[in-house]
């Protein structure tokens, strides 16, 4: 649950935050040909989305394994 909320916070900041709400401020910064706010809106947010899902997959798989171990430990005790 904590994983979910923190990933969703990043999701919100990258897209709605950098891409929309603060995008004009970020546009003041220019890296090569891109204004930063524009880049976040059209490129950056998408890359972050992909990363987020894979981080989630990784963390959940780890959780799954831990959870399964817990179950088998309990069965051992019995």
């Amino acid at each position, binding site marked *: 649950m904590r994983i*979910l909320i923190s*990933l*969703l916070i990043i*999701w919100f900041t990258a*897209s*709605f935050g950098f*891409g*929309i*709400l603060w*995008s004009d401020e970020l*546009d003041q910064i220019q*890296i*090569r*040909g*891109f*204004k930063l706010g*524009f*880049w976040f*809106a*059209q*490129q950056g*947010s*998408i*890359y972050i*989305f*992909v990363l*987020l*899902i*894979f981080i*989630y*997959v990784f963390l*959940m*798989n780890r*959780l*799954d394994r831990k*959870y399964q171990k817990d179950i088998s430990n309990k069965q051992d005790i019995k």
Partner: protein
Amino acid sequence: MSTQELTYAFVGLSFALYIGIAIWSRAKSTSDFYVAGKGVNPIANGMATAADWMSAASFISMAGLIAFMGKDGSVYLMGWTGGYVLLALLLAPYLRKFGQFTVPDFIGTRYYSKAARLVAVLCLIFISFTYVAGQMRGVGIVFSRFLEVDINQGVAIGMIIVFFYAVLGGMKGITYTQVAQYCVLIFAYLVPAIFISILITGNPIPQLGFGDTIINSSTYLLDKLDQVTEELGFLPYTESLKSKIDIFCITAALMFGTAGLPHVIVRFFTVPKVSDARKSAGYALIFIALLYTTAPAVGAFARVNFIDSVQDTQYTNAPSWFKNWESIGLISWNDKNSDGIIRYEAGNAFVDGRPKFIEGYGPYGERMTSNIPDLSNNNEVYIDRDIMVLANPEIANLPGWVIALVAAGGLAAALSTAAGLLLVISAAISHDLMRKTFRPDITDKQELLYARLAAGLAIVIAGLFGIYPPGFVAQVVAFAFGLASATIFPALFLGIFSKTINKEGAISGMLVGLTFTFSYIAYYKFINPSMNHEENWLFAISPEGIGFIGMLFNFFTAIIVSRFYPPPPFEVKDMVETIRQP
């Protein structure tokens, strides 16, 4: 070979491939038909999901929209990808764990009510048909422009192909054809983009290229575009016109709508394990991101090339693509100052929207229209945004086989999405209406027969939409997403994360979301379009973004109403508990 022969060859080959795959992977049981026997590899499922999701709108229209909207076009990029994060984190794994065939299955079981299932089926059929109509228009455009067959014949050919593999193969056939279609469409999208990127900036990666300098100069492409668009009276390319709140709501409506689209959700029912559902959402987004990060580059390149090759050109010397698209009615030129030179600037060419062509030609050979020219500006060009991706390789003078490839790619995008949607419609009818509501006594075999009949019927209706297109396909897409986010998403989300929402709450929530969103969009788009301006909108939110507000209303209603009725029975609480365990 000429471009047209090449196009025939490419399109014919790709169609033969799809049919071959369909025969190889015929469906034998209802489980095969609805969820491909739950045995699809997550990477293959990711590709299929990507092809399913990337419709004619993504392939054909999106880059064109971005080219003309500039930064405001970002709503589509973020909205249509960000939804996958929600899907992967909040819905897909849980729904897979629940392990049934359809979305109404979940809603019907979780809210222990046939009424809830029926409301879900209603929303689902409406969303899916509006969406299919758009695909069929895409098929029509590609056929009429590149193969020079009649639009009606084109749609008919498309229908036969889809009929063949959707009815025969069900989800299994569709999944494997979609994998092939994804390969065709992404290749067709990237090749011209890479070519054009090299031509304009010398950088072979379009994603980096459009932030690069123009070849043989030290100006950045986007800076030049800002400057040129501003000179012609447009807003600079990288600045936005819409209000922040409106952009916020449109993006949100598209994101939650994406997460609530039934044909996307159902794809996650096809993988073997819950962990595969998560993984396959990730792969799907990678495959989608490949196209979605290229699209803004394509848009920027297209805008530059378009302005370069059209602005201040003598009409008689205009490039041949300009006249080709004019002849099928998607470009129009109205020589306001009668000098024979094309002027492209900000403002509308006509007071009354789309060109209405009449018989006869003007002094320079242009097609005549009966529209009233808009004399408040000097713009003489009407251009349909849908043509940018298809025309782009011609505008950039790329070789014939690239143009042929793009035509095959556009068809792959439209057909794959149409097939996925048709399957959802047929499953809703045969499984949710027949088996679970009206005729619970039918056998598996009979259900499969009903599913095939329903798919066949749905294809015929969709084809009719393509032949007699409702003149408002673009607006209708706003409908589909708005409704998905206002009805299905909240019902699924609350169903998974709350144990206290009961059937009364969920049904009233869906109905409130549905009626509110439906009437808001219908009012501004169809009943009273002249009122469709920012000052009349509720909280300055356009009809495209209202689905987000509808969603909030849905949540609110569902939670309040649930307090006044008895809590859900024990089995349901138990079920929620189980699906939340990984």
